[in-house]
């Protein structure tokens, strides 16, 4: 222990990391393009980001954004779905299209020598999807089945139920991002076409690329690829409805009678991606539940052996999100584990954060940042898109280490008081209800029980 402490000052860590240089331009039709050449592996990563995402799903049609994104490749330009797949696979390219709370994201990674062919495919997907009736119907049925299969994965299902509970029916984050059996059944081809027409426009599009290319030639290629899109309008962000969860403790118990362990989340209101509190909040959350030696994991895993892992998740999206404790434990230890999680939270509130904990967390955050955000072309393309989406400058990266270093114990404890001290905790438990119902009843007056076999995830669609 003493020897170890002495080692702490062995060698200094890097003082800062910097974002590699990049170029930015706006095409005449409004498309924002950011380019970062990096010669490392002979790969190029391109990310197309469209403002909106699942928050743009119309009421009652949760999953429309995700479904539209999925359909882009199923017949586009002159190719059928099958031909598109063959062309993509022939290049060995990796393609994905999905939705985040505030953006639709398409990613494509390919060998630099294939840039022209790969971008041709991407352009077809973004600008010229066919949305054939037959493909729409097929995709809807597959999506509904995928949603059903999520219920065979209790950890993932618990997260989706938690959204319904925490954000409530009026909030865009309260709906399942990929929809559910009920909402997907209401989606027609016309809805998909209209959704595409509205959101896949020049002014709503951010294209970021990093990797093995020469900026000049690649810029020309990107102008050709995306310059022809209609300018349209940028997506207008929705007003943030309040999170109803903040009023009183609530508990939902999702009954999965065959479960041999209980999965649970305990949430309270947190902050948005652009909040001025984000850096100290990241530090506090890491030490509370965001790393192996965190207070939560130490108590629930290391000291008591109740679980394989316990953590605290800090949502950082456009609108303020949740801070949620998450873990799982054997059915008969459910109350013990929930109590212990609450006890750890209570201790954080009571004792706050000390200098030693904060110093360790700062080193941890700085040590893992380069490999999490700055190492690969796809990470960098994603980072540039995030900066553009949220209107952040390069200081977000260049000053990150300095901002981490500047956080004081007082700052950290202000974060604890502000975000980790709710009197209205929201409990979501998924497990064998008959075995745990009584033991967990004391956590909230307001309770609801939902069989896992009921369609959807307990909320609006």
């Amino acid at each position, binding site marked *: *222990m003493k020897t*170890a402490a002495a080692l*702490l000052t*062995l*060698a200094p*860590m*890097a003082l800062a*990391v910097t974002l590699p240089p990049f170029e930015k331009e706006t095409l005449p039709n409004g498309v924002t393009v950011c380019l970062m050449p990096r010669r*490392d*592996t*002979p*790969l190029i990563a391109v990310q197309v980001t469209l403002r909106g995402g699942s928050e743009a799903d119309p009421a009652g049609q949760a999953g429309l954004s995700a479904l539209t994104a999925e359909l882009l*490749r199923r017949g586009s330009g002159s190719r059928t*779905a*099958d031909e598109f*797949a*063959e062309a*993509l*696979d*022939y*290049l*060995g*390219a*990796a393609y994905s299209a999905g939705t985040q709370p505030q953006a639709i994201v398409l990613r494509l*990674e*390919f*060998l630099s020598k294939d840039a022209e062919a790969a971008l041709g495919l991407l352009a077809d997907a973004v600008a010229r999807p066919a949305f054939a009736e037959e493909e729409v119907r*097929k995709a809807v049925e*597959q999506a509904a*089945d995928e949603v*059903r*299969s999520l219920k*065979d994965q209790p*950890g993932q299902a618990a997260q989706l139920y938690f959204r319904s509970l925490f954000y409530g029916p009026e909030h865009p984050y309260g709906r399942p991002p990929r929809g559910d059996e009920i909402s997907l059944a209401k989606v027609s081809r016309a809805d998909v076409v209209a959704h595409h027409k509205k959101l896949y426009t020049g002014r709503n599009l951010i294209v970021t690329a990093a990797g093995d290319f020469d900026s000049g030639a690649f810029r020309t290629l990107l102008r050709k690829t995306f310059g022809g899109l209609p300018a349209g309008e940028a997506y207008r962000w929705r007003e943030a409805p309040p999170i109803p969860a903040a009023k009183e403790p609530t508990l939902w118990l999702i009954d999965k*009678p*065959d*479960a041999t*362990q209980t999965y649970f989340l305990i949430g309270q209101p947190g902050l948005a991606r652009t909040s001025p509190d984000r850096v100290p909040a990241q530090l506090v959350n890491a030490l509370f539940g965001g*790393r*192996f*030696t965190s207070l939560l994991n*130490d108590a629930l*895993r290391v000291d*008591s*052996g109740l679980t*394989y892992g316990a953590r605290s998740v800090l949502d950082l999206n456009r609108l303020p999100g949740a801070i949620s404790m998450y873990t*799982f*434990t054997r059915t008969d230890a459910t109350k013990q584990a929930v109590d212990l999680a609450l006890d750890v939270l209570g201790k954080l509130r009571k004792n706050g954060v000390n200098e030693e904990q904060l110093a*360790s967390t700062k*080193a*941890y955050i*700085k*040590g*893992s940042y*380069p*490999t999490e955000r*700055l*190492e*690969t072309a*796809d990470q960098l393309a994603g980072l540039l898109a995030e900066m553009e989406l949220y209107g952040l400058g390069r200081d977000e990266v260049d000053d990150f280490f300095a901002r981490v270093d500047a956080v004081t114990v007082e700052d950290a404890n202000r974060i604890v008081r502000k975000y980790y001290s709710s009197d209205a905790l929201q409990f979501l438990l998924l497990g064998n209800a008959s075995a745990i119902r009584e033991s967990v009843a004391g956590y909230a007056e307001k309770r609801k029980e939902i069989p896992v076999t009921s369609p959807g995830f307990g909320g609006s669609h």
Partner: protein
Amino acid sequence: MRLASLLVTAAMAHAQPLAVQTFTLDNGMKVLVHEDRDIPNVALYLFFKIGSRDERPGVTGISHFFEHMMFNGAKKYGPKQFDIVMEANGGSNNAYTSRDVTVYTDWFPRSALELIMDMESDRMVHLDLDPKMVESERGVVYSERRQRVDNDNFGLLEEQLDAAAFLAHPYGWPVIGWASDIEAWTIDDLRHHYRIGYAPNNCVMVVSGDVSRREVEELAKQYFGGIERQEPPPAVRTVEPEQLGERRVEIRKAAQLPLLMVSYHVPRSADADRTTLEVLTALLTRGRSSRLYRRLVDRDRLALDVSAYAGKSLDPGQLVFYLEVTSGVDPAKAEEALFEEIDAMRKDLADARELEKAKNQLLVQLYRQQKTIAGKANLLGQYEVFHGGYETLAQAGEAIASVSAESVREAARRYLDPKKRTIATLIPEAAAAKESE
């Protein structure tokens, strides 16, 4: 077009190999160093050549459990200190156990290199197995099993599939261990495991990132040079007898969707046929243009998803096909379509463009695995342990490029033999009840 594409494959196949420097300490510990200074970080991986294949009935899962115990205190760095000190110095870590190896993975800023070497050497030789820690960690591993197997239909079915596919070889038992064994292993079992597996001569260390060979060599000598070599784990003598007919297992339980898995026996990773099998597998399952995706997911809609995987193995292992069956579909229908497609691979030659496509996919995949310092450390270690030396990684591209349509068909005939397959099906209980009405 044909010519151009062939040239492309050849060019990719001869891509610059990873620059690796290597040395071996007097005690037999081999070290690979790859310098990459793009970010100020380092990945340090320790591959111990011991896994669930080195276990026996009654102590199955001990390799994996031991992996957990490696974080619970040694001499210089006591209980919890490994993680506390590592994180306080900007590092993070994990570990994984397979049938053949136990691998410890550290990621950290370059400033922590010496510290990590010190901590890794401390636990390689001075691990302190505290009975209280053993009991607490037993609960953690049990929770991991409940998470990965008991409450995961995929994990549950795969466990039963493996047990049926192997009659004799240790690959038949789960890496995480049977539940009864997790409850029963003792501190003496752990001591025995430490003695046979954790020695410098049974370990390969890979360091990739912002380092020089010189500093790695100096530190390796200083921290690992004094550790004594030991007898390596006893050889695994059991050879799986040839499978003589199809085998089936079935699980009936509450579930939303049925699952289907089919396992075939394949040679060990160092065998040249494994590259041919990779191409064969890519033709069948890689991407939405693959034969099984086209047929089962897109055209006939019998499955939501289809994939296949052949894990790295020191002994002859498995190629397993995984199908998530569409709700309301009889898994037998999906099975029939799967076998029709496999039969076609055994009967006809793949056309040139399709073969080229599969090879391109695998070649780009090789690059993709080298995007990060962690990816490179893992890949180098795997080639060193499973493919007869890290040098073989430089030939991996060429090996893929040289696979012919004839050799693919030959591999399909030889390895995807209906007599040598094991089929596992998970049938949702509600659907099962309907059938019996």
